[in-house]
Structures are given as structure tokens and as C-alpha cells.
């Protein structure tokens, strides 16, 4: 089981990524990433 665990986690994570991509998460990340993050730079 211990040897299989990373493979299972990898498969589940890949599934999460695909589901996220399908549901529009990538677009949400892109929208945030291409806007200057006011919190990051200290304006708030």
C-alpha cells in the first residue's frame, strides 16, 4: 500500500487538475495573475 500511495495521490491530483480546468479554475487563476495584486505589493 505504501508503495502505491504516491501513485494514487498523483492520479487523484491529476483528476483534480482536470476537473479544475473543466470548471474554469484556470481562467480564474489567469484573471488574478494578470492583474497587479494590490495585496502582494502592499496597497491592500
Amino acid at each position: 500500500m505504501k508503495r502505491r500511495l504516491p501513485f494514487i495521490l498523483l492520479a487523484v491530483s491529476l483528476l483534480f487538475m482536470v476537473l479544475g480546468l473543466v470548471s474554469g479554475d484556470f481562467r480564474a487563476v489567469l484573471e488574478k495573475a494578470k492583474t497587479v495584486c494590490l495585496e502582494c505589493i502592499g496597497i491592500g
Partner: protein
Amino acid sequence: MELQKKRRWYQAVAAVAFNAYLPGFFKGGIYRGTPKGLCVPVFNCYSCPSALGACPIGSLQNAMASVRLNLSLARRQFGLYVIGFLGVVGSAVGRLPCGWICPFGFFQELLFKIPSPKFGVPRVLRYFKYVFLAVLTILLPLLVLDALGGGEPWFCKWVCPAGTLEAGIPLALLNTSIRGQLGLLFAWKTAVLAGFLVWMVFVMRPFCRTTCPLGAILGLFNKISLWRMTVDEETCTLCGKCQKECPVGISVNETPNSPDCIRCLKCEKVCPFGSIGHEFPGRKPRASAAPSPQEVHP
């Protein structure tokens, strides 16, 4: 090429590769192309003028901050892309990116080269990164909402020294409209950055060891990831050279896959008996070619 020299090259090339949009420094703005939506497996602020990808910790906070708003609007966006990305990196290689390609880790290692007295990190501080992860990166963005139902990226806003260094200061210098809006929060963040910069001179990678939420997440995978450190207990003499050389002070022979290990492989290089190595499925365990204890002490 000697392994640590090779690692330096990886770190330098990665720092440039993740920040290759140089026009940003002339325009005083940031890169806005579609690849910016791709998360990078390192701590690199996406508001840095030259950043090409998305910081996974900033993205995770923003995903958490919008979960409840998305639920109320019946949108099915729960941050699965970012969570899945972190899971893929973690379950494949654990904290390997911290030691080999993280620009902020590289920056800390360079500052540590400044001649000065050197110190360790009290053990209790190592657990603080999990508090920063759980409270500032996940819970507060998820639970504290404004009037419109959205949360804030608390770690980015109140702590992240990489954001101040890579984005805040460059944009303040390059962009007059941003410079005009700076206030107390920027002063606070600059003070946090200054504190870390001083700490980095005296302590190896203090941010990675005590604060980094990305390191905290990837470190949780170290024990179970496909890429793993190995110790041959038959040849290990418990001489302690590995722990002495380890930049994050791990007892390598006891916990080779400790959550704090950044997998820089310095221990592998210094082991006089070649007892420390690493493995990956499909490849035989690899260790440095060193004599066995019997050969050294016949």
C-alpha cells in the same frame, strides 16, 4: 560538473526562466499573456514585473477567498486546479523544487554567503509554517469575507516578503500611479521584508524553514513522494557529517525524508561511505561513489 555547482546553475537558470518577461521592468507593468495562468512549482510572486507564471500560494489564497462567493453564485470553482497542481508536484518530487529551482530560496542562499556569524533555527519555529499555511493561506481567506462575499489573500497582504521584494518595490519604483497609493500597509510589508533580509544573512533559508506555506505543503509529501531520499543502514556509521552539512539541520540518517528537507543533496555528497542516496520508480537507488566503512576502517 560537481553536484552543488550544478544545483547553483539550476537555481540561476530557473530564476531567469520564471522571470523572463524583461519588458515588465521597462513598462512598470506585469506580463498578461495566457501562460500566466499556469502555476509554477516555486515561490515567485505573480505581480513581479517579469513573472511568467502564477504563484501557487497566491492562487490558492484567491481560490479559497472566492469559494463561498462562487457557491452563492452556483459556480463550480473550488480551486481544484491549484490543489491538484500542488498534489501533482508534491506526490512526484516533494520539496525537490525548493532546493533546486525556487528563486526565493536561491536568493536566501546568496544572502547567507555574506560573511557573518551563523545561527540555527529553534525547533519550535519550524512548525510556524504550518500555522501560516492553515490560518493565513486557507482559513482566513475562506472565512473572513467582505460585504460582497469575497475574501482576501491574507498571507500575501500581511506577510509575504517575496511579494514586497519582487513586486512591491519594483512596481513602486517604476510606476508613479502605484507609488502614489502606497501607505501604512506598504511600510509594514517593507519592515517584514527588512526583518527577513537581516535574518537571511545569519540563518540559512529562514523563510523556507519557518514561514513558507508552499514548503509546508510540499514537505508533507516528502515521506510518500515518488522521488525519495534513501539511507543504507548497513553502511551508515552515524558519523553525523550529513547533519552537520545539512542547510536545514536535519538528522538525515534518522529522517531522510523529513518534511523540512529541501532535497539539495548536500548530505549525499558529504557522506564518506556513500550511504545516502535517492531513488525514483524505474531508476535504481543512486548514491555517491564512496568507500564502504570496511574499506575505510578495515
